[in-house]
C-alpha cells in the first residue's frame, strides 16, 4: 500500500513504509471500473444539509466532478426515485421510519455506501435527544415550549413516526466508508471522492480529518 496519511510539516509521525497509512485504514473493499461515468446518489436523513452545502464548496471542481459522475437521486437533481448506482452518499443519522426506508433503499441500490459527516457517522447533534425520552422531546417542542399556540403533538398519518433514539447509519445497514466532520470540508470531500472514484487509496491530511 502507498503511504498516504501525511502528518504534514515536520513529520514527527510521517508515514513510513511500514507505518500507518490511510490506505490500509480504508483499503477499497470494492473497486470501481474506470472510464465509464459513475452513477451517484445522495440523500440527507436526520441532518441539516450542511454536508450537501459542503459538497457544493468544492466550487469549480464541481465541473470536474460532472465529468466523472452522473447524478441519480439527489437534492441537486430533485429526482425522487432511486435507480441502481455505483455510489450512494448519506448525510444525517436515522431518526424516523422514513429515514430507515430511504437508507435501506440506498443500501439495496448502491454498490458503495458512504456515511458523510458527523450525523451519519455517529448520530451527531440530532442524537443529543437520545438522553431524553421521546415523549419529553415532543412535549417540550409542541406542548410546554414558550410562545406556542395550537399546542399539541402533530399526528398527521403522513408524518413519518419518530424512532425512540437517533442512530448512526452503520447501526442500520452496512457502510463501506465513513468521512467524519461537521461538515467535512469541501477539500476533504473532494480528496475523498476523487480517490474513491478513481480507485486510488483514500488519503486524508491532518487538516481534512476532523470531527467538528
Amino acid at each position, binding site marked *: 500500500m502507498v503511504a498516504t496519511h501525511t502528518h504534514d510539516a515536520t513529520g514527527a*509521525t510521517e508515514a513510513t513504509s511500514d*507505518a*500507518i497509512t490511510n490506505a490500509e*485504514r480504508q483499503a477499497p473493499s470494492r473497486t470501481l471500473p474506470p472510464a465509464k461515468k459513475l452513477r451517484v446518489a445522495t440523500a440527507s436523513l436526520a441532518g441539516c444539509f450542511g454536508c450537501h452545502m459542503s459538497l457544493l464548496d468544492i466550487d469549480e471542481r464541481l465541473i470536474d466532478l460532472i465529468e466523472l459522475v452522473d447524478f441519480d437521486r439527489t437534492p441537486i437533481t430533485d429526482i425522487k426515485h432511486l435507480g441502481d448506482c455505483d455510489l450512494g452518499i448519506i448525510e444525517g443519522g436515522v431518526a424516523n421510519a422514513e429515514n430507515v426506508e430511504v437508507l435501506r433503499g440506498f443500501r439495496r441500490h448502491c454498490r458503495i455506501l458512504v456515511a458523510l459527516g458527523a450525523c451519519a457517522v455517529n448520530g451527531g*447533534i440530532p442524537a443529543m435527544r437520545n*438522553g431524553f425520552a421521546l415523549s419529553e422531546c415532543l412535549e417540550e417542542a409542541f406542548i410546554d415550549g414558550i410562545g406556542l399556540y395550537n399546542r399539541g403533538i402533530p399526528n398527521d398519518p403522513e408524518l413519518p413516526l419518530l424512532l425512540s433514539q437517533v442512530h448512526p447509519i452503520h447501526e442500520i445497514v452496512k457502510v463501506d466508508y465513513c468521512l467524519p466532520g461537521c461538515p467535512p470540508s469541501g477539500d476533504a470531500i473532494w480528496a475523498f471522492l476523487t480517490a474513491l472514484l478513481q480507485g486510488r487509496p483514500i488519503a486524508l491530511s*491532518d487538516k481534512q480529518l476532523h470531527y*467538528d
Partner: protein
Amino acid sequence: MAIVEGRFRLDGVEIPFQPGQTIMDAALAAAVYIPHLCHHPALLPHGSCRVCVVRVNGREVSSCTTPATAGLEVESETEALRALRVAILQMLFVEGNHVCPACERTGACELQAVAYHCGMLEPHFTHFFPRRELDASHPDLVLDLNRCILCERCVRASRDLDRKRVFAVAGRGLDSHLIVDSPTGRLGDSRLELTDQAAHICPVGAILLRQRAGDVGERHGFRVPIGERPYDRESISRVGDVATLVEES
C-alpha cells in the same frame, strides 16, 4: 551515587532514560510522542486508558506504567498498535456522549486529538448513548459527565496536587462514574476552586470553565473559533505536552 543513564530503542530510535523513569517519561523527555490520555507529566502514572499501549519484547504493555530498562526494543507507531489504539478510542467514544460539534472543548480536546493522530474515522461499535448528569452548580466550573472518560486526572490532581480529594470514581464496570466530595454530591458545594489544578487538567470537555463577558486568559471558550484551536492547527504529536515539556527543559 552517580545517576546511571541507560538507553532503549523506540521504533528504532535510541532513547536515553534515568533510573525510575517509565517508557512514557523517557519518550516525552526526548520529545518523542506516544499517544496517551490518562497520563499527565505532573501526575503519578495511572495506566487506565491503555491508549499508550506499546509492544515490548513481544508483549503489549502500557508505556506510562512500564519502567524503562536498558536495551528494550519498543514498538509504537506500527499498524498493529495503531489499530489497537483506534479500537480503544472507539470504545471510549461510544461509551460516553462525545458530540464534538456541540462541545466547547472541540479542537482543544485530547481525546479528539489522539483520535485524529491515530486516524479514527468512525465509531465502529454500537453507540451506548448513556444518560449521565450535568452538574452546573459551581459558579466557575461545569461538570458534564457525558464526556467523562474516567481517566482520573482530576482525581489525582485534586488528591496529590491540590490536597483536597474533591473527586473520586465510584461504582463498578458500566456503573463507574465520577463522584464529588461534598455534602450534596454537587460540585458547587465542594471545596473545588478555579485556582485548583484539578479544575484545569481534564483532557476532554467534562470539566469546563464557565465564561462571562470580559473574561480573559484561559476562559476564552468559543472566542477562539473552531478551526483555530490548538489541535486544529497542529497534531497533538507536536503541540501537546510533548512540546511543552521540551520548552520547559
